[in-house]
């Protein structure tokens, strides 16, 4: 296939050529970055929380009348007892927060008390000996809390745990390549605490700032005595829905002086949906825009090529009359499109990287992997070829006798 005559023909259609090149370039730039955003969001929202999500729900409870720490302790004990007796409940514990929740505690972790700045932040979950079995966490080293290790703490007391259980992610950060069990670390301003166990995975509560340390959590063996608490309840297989209805009813029946609002009972699938709502939405939006964009560009190519074919009817007829085969004509338009698309993706690759740099600069996004540019380039070249195929086929079927007749 001779490229020179094609280039010369394109020179006669400068405006149209430039428009298609521009359109392909912009499409590539947007599609690459959109795919990249989609991938990032999907990775984010498919992170496992570490919790056995199919069987766990949370109940947020407030007692009326500002109970003192002693009263709160008695109320909490009796609530835990009530929940344990509720049919379908496998296990339960009380905490201050839960993974994927919207708020919670965090503390800086230091090796020693006189270390100036913290080595890592960590999310703090109040727990007891039932926490691991309720959430379905796996111990990868060490042991669980014992019931005699579980203490009480009032709202404004300093957190000073003797023993703690941490996640593998935190252990790897603090003691890379070494066993963390038996070592001591300082949580916040507290004196050293001994690590007695390491769990496989437990995500932090969701806050935009906690993204960098998403699995660095610590379990502390205390009951936090405030005017309210969060119960985490594990249901027996298949009984989650029943428990979600029965548990608050049982709590109200045992003691009506409390508030559990309509949004205060949530299963983990509801919690997950709420936590990642904007990530899922962003991925869907980007996906829709990509598809519509590709369709628009394909339509543009079909439209402009059809126009060119109709303009060059005589030209095609003459070529056919002079011995060009149908395949030659088909090849001509396909090659022409390939040349244009090639120009488009070259400009587009530069634009894609430029747009990504803007996003990195303004929105703290990550750098675009070049694999996206390669995939996008191949996709657009294929799109161009398939879009041009129908008008090119029509061109190749023009009968030379008919189109040259008017000359």
């Amino acid at each position: 296939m001779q490229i020179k005559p094609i280039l010369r023909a394109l020179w006669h259609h400068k405006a149209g050529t430039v428009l298609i090149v521009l359109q392909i370039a912009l499409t590539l730039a947007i599609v690459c970055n959109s795919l990249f955003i989609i991938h990032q969001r999907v990775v984010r929202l498919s992170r496992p929380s570490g919790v056995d999500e199919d069987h766990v729900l949370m109940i947020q409870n407030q007692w009326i009348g500002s109970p003192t720490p002693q009263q709160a302790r008695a109320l909490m004990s009796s609530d835990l007892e009530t929940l344990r007796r509720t049919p379908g409940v496998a296990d339960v514990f009380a905490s201050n927060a839960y993974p994927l929740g919207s708020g919670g505690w965090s503390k800086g972790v230091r090796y020693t008390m006189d270390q100036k700045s913290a080595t890592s932040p960590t999310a703090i979950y109040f727990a007891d000996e039932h926490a691991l079995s309720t959430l379905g966490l796996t111990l990868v080293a060490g042991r669980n809390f014992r019931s005699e290790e579980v203490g009480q703490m009032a709202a404004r007391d300093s957190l000073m745990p003797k023993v703690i259980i941490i996640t593998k992610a935190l252990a790897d950060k603090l003691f890379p390549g070494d066993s963390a069990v038996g070592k001591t670390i300082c949580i916040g301003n507290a004196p050293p605490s001994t690590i007695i166990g390491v769990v496989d995975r437990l995500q932090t509560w969701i806050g935009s700032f906690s993204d960098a340390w998403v699995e660095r959590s610590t379990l502390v063996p205390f009951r936090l005595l405030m005017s309210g608490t969060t119960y985490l309840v594990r249901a027996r297989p298949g009984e989650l829905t029943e428990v979600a209805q029965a548990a608050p009813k049982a709590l109200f029946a045992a003691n009506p002086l409390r508030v559990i609002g309509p949004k205060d009972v949530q299963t983990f699938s509801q919690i997950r949906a709420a936590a990642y709502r904007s990530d899922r939405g962003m991925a869907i939006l980007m996906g829709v825009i990509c598809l519509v964009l590709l369709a628009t560009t394909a339509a543009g190519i079909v439209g402009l090529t059809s126009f060119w074919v109709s303009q060059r009817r005589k030209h095609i007829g003459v070529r056919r009359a002079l011995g060009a085969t149908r395949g030659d004509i088909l090849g001509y338009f396909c090659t022409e499109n390939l040349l244009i698309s090639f120009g488009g993706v070259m400009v587009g690759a530069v634009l894609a990287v430029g747009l990504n740099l803007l996003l990195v600069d303004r929105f703290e996004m990550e750098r675009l992997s070049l694999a996206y540019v390669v995939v996008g380039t191949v996709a657009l070249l294929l799109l161009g070829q398939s879009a041009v195929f129908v008008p090119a086929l029509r061109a190749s079927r023009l009968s030379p006798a008919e189109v040259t007749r008017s000359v």
Partner: protein
Amino acid sequence: MLGYYFQLALHSFRRSPGLTALMVLIMGVGVAASMTTYAVFRAVSGDPLPDKSAQLFVPQIDNLGPQNGSTRNHLPDALTYRDAMALMRARVGKRQTAIYPVVDNVVPQDGAHRAFTANGYAAYADFFPMFEARFAYGGSWNDSDDQQRANVIIIGSQLNQKLFSGANSVGRMLDLNGHDYRIVGVIDDWNPQPRFYDVNNGSGFADTPDFYLPFTRAVDLHMDTNGNNSCSGSSKPMAPGWDGWLQSECVWVSLWVELPDAAAVQRYSEFLSGYAAQQQSSGRFHWVSHVGLFDLTDWLDHEGVVPPEAKVSLLVAAGFLLVCLVNTIGLLLAKIMRRAGEIGVRRALGASRGAIYRQFIAEAVMVGVAGGVLGLALTAAGVLSTDLLFEPEIARLAHTNVSLIGLTLLVSIFATVVAAIYPAWRAARVQPSWQLKSQ
């Protein structure tokens, strides 16, 4: 003449309905994508108090020090209780209020309804005139209520509806978790968006507050903050209990001051620097303590109130509209150049270049109007489905109104006319003699 151009345009649409429909569809989709994302962006980036925002300021004090990661541009976004109280006592601004979010249980006294949770704010009397709160009944409490730690309360219209069926409840009592408060005012439908005074707790778009009570009273009752409490500035274990917390370096109190003019801002800046320097020389800070004084709009910007999703999607949608525009130029060019013969005849019969130019711009306007109408329908659908994309509290802010409808049509027509400039120019340059000869 205009009517004739539109007639010609209609004729041309009938001749190539597919191409015309494609142009209208592409323009409509492009405009709708941009307008939907713009509706969300506009809702979250608006100025909550347009006529007052330039006079409202947030002071910041660096009580963390550089070893705890604070820098000149990244100071704690709330104050300690003792700093907030010192700034309140100094009364250097025209008005000032310390604020913190609280949550409490409302216990209805009718014996029929269960207790429920309500969200509110602890603030000073200045809060209401400063932020231009509108009252349905009654009004604010006064300074002496603040000083006497009075058990007064202002409730929102929703809570008033729920408890008193919307009647004037001023003077009646409200039971919050076993404590009685006398209602002195009912806030009308007032809920500035974003809620600038609580964005540092991530509550910029939260539900309308149910109640407001005196800060001094809330502290007396040991009401905990429902917002952030950051203690990374306390290098030594704090004293136990509530009073230990009040005296600690934990930051949890927001402070807003009203400074009506540049002189007042200057005076407040100097006062703030002086206060920090004094804390340093007294030995509390072992570092040069930077201070900050943000006005309302800069504060919203600093706190990153507009979600990145809203900005990125607006950017991508604008890029999409650009592609649609380029596409439309291409299609219009194809469409117009196919009619070179017709243009030749019109030119030969006396139509001027300007007339040809106007004819095709008129045709583009019609495509733009059609695209705009389609875009309008798609935008309305898009705005209704924003809750698929954004947090519900943000999605509900996006709505269709007259200005959005006008803007959608305008953008569509403007974009199509811009797209038509080059093809129309090409059409006007068609050589009549050449066209007629080749026929």
